[in-house]
């Protein structure tokens, strides 16, 4: 799905010699933005941390949707699996070191990714979409049923992470959580940049364009996609763990269809098939939602809907994709 919509600035970057420079520039932009966020909105760090966690989910979704062409409305299953894995480790087993919690979250997400991927890859197109919905509902129900472990619909409380390196505690102002989240995001982002440019990443993109040809070349389509799914699960799991650490509670909503659908909306809003698109989509959607819902908590949904329609009408390749196309056109004219 969505093959036509994809823009691949990354592939252009590889053809040029200056890809390293571009990555560093991208990294610099993220860090500068993060710094500006910290300085300008010191009282909104909780929201910014939440955006960071969701950005990890959207990046992870981009890996399977944007790079492999697998449409899913159930990606929150992996995010929630990571959140619950980290949360349960802390609440039931007393593993409260935030870094270990993140690792556990990544493992939980990867395991969920393996399971979900194995099922998802049995269908194509619409069937795949329905499989993803079924999976996220099954995860949701399982967590609801296992209330002894997960707290059920009341949410898993009692997560109190230790200070990072024993120095920086998680407090009311959320500074530690924010910096912690940004560091995670930057690390994941760098790793993913390397990943999508690697032969493996190229193979995934090839599968998306034409799976028959790739399998004719002798590569195993399903094994490759499954591997990507596991990696994607790990990334989503890191996001989930960050959410669990920063909010110290995990709710069933983290495994919900709604969260999955919102993540997909954010990704398409920003533009699929490029990591920057995912980041921009998350930032714009969540900031906009917070902004309009604090102005009018009662009727903001209409405005968000209008934004989505406007984006389809005026920026059909997503915000980042359309911006890249515009830049390209200007450059071509020159």
């Amino acid at each position, binding site marked *: 799905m969505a093959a036509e*919509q994809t823009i691949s600035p990354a592939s252009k970057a590889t053809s040029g010699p200056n890809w390293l420079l571009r990555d560093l520039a991208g990294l610099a932009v993220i860090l500068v933005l993060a710094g500006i966020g910290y300085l300008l909105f010191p009282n909104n760090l909780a929201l910014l941390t939440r955006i960071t966690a969701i950005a990890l989910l959207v990046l992870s979704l981009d890996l399977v949707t944007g790079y492999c062409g697998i449409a899913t409305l159930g990606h929150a299953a992996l995010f929630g699996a990571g959140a619950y894995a980290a949360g349960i480790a802390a609440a039931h087993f007393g593993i409260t070191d935030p870094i270990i919690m993140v690792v556990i979250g990544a493992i939980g997400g990867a395991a969920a990714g393996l399971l979900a991927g194995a099922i998802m890859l*049995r269908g194509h197109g619409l069937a795949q979409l329905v*499989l993803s*919905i*079924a999976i996220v*509902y*099954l995860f949701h129900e399982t967590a609801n049923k296992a209330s002894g472990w997960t707290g059920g619909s009341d949410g898993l409380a009692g997560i109190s992470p230790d200070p990072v390196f024993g120095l920086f505690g998680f407090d009311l102002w959320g500074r530690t959580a924010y910096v912690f989240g940004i560091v995670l995001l930057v690390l994941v982002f760098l790793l993913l940049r390397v990943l999508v440019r690697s032969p493996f990443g190229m193979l995934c993109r090839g599968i998306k364009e034409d799976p028959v040809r790739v399998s004719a070349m002798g590569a195993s389509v399903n094994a490759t996609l499954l591997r990507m799914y596991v990696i994607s699960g790990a990334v989503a799991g890191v996001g989930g763990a960050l959410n669990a650490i920063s909010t110290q509670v995990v709710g069933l909503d983290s495994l919900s269809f709604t969260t999955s659908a919102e993540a997909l909306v954010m990704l*398409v809003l920003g533009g699929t098939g490029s990591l920057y698109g995912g980041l921009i989509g998350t930032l714009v959607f969540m900031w906009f939602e917070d902004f309009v819902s604090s102005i009018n908590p009662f009727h903001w949904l209409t405005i968000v*809907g209008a934004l989505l329609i406007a984006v389809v009408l005026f920026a059909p390749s997503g915000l980042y994709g359309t911006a890249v196309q515009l830049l390209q056109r200007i450059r071509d004219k020159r």
Partner: protein
Amino acid sequence: MQTVFSVGTDALAYGMVLFVISIGLSVTMGLMRVVNLAHGAFAMIGGYIASYAAHMLGFGYAVAILLAVAGTILISIPIERFLFRRIYGAPELTQVLMTIGITFCVIGIANYVFGPTLKTIPLPDMLRGPVDLGYRSIAAHKLFAIACGVVVAGALWFLIDRTAFGVKLRASVDNAAMAGSLGVRTRIVYAVSSAVAVGLAAFGGIVGAELLPIEPYYALRYMVTFLVVVSVGGAGSIPGALLACLVLGAIDTTGRYLVPEYGEFFFYLAVITIVCLFPNGLLGRKR
């Protein structure tokens, strides 16, 4: 034995209600190739108009249905003209974004205009109360829904398989350029089928309102159900959708009777199994 019959009847009734509500989506998704997440929004608009016509304007049930279907189609015309036409043939994810946006807007507007309370559509006396079937009693409106399902299925099958319009529609779907060069005015064909799909959505919204009550969040609440039913049946296939509704209705109803605690597991595991066995839907065409 009586219990088996009884549960079977419930399953049939539930399946047919599902069919009436979701068949419009099968038309948009299968024939027009639009992943229309706003289907529930149109069903909801139909419900609101019918409720308004019955309560505020004092019309009877039949008139309310007609008004609602006509009114919903009328509302959908500008939406089709200015928004949907932009996404025919667009990538599916773009369609998802657009139709979710429309759904959000409709929810917000419904909440603002009609308020967040439940709205009912008063049934005529004939459809009120239980009917005795001998081995059990069943709500009269459920029998009505079953009848509606049969009529809708028959009429749609006739329209698509037996009329000149159906031929043109199938031709436009398979190859719009070729159909156009043969003199089929594909734009009109698309506009008409879109109106039919919206009309079916509104009709389904009203007939199913006893089971799925009308309120602003309706548009999103049941979206997943519609999507699953249509995909399991095979988008665009009328018999497929009917079969899927009956099968899923039966699974859901038996699941809820036998193991209500695990009803959700039962249903979604069945969906996964069916989708894995029939990746193109029960009666869907292979693409």
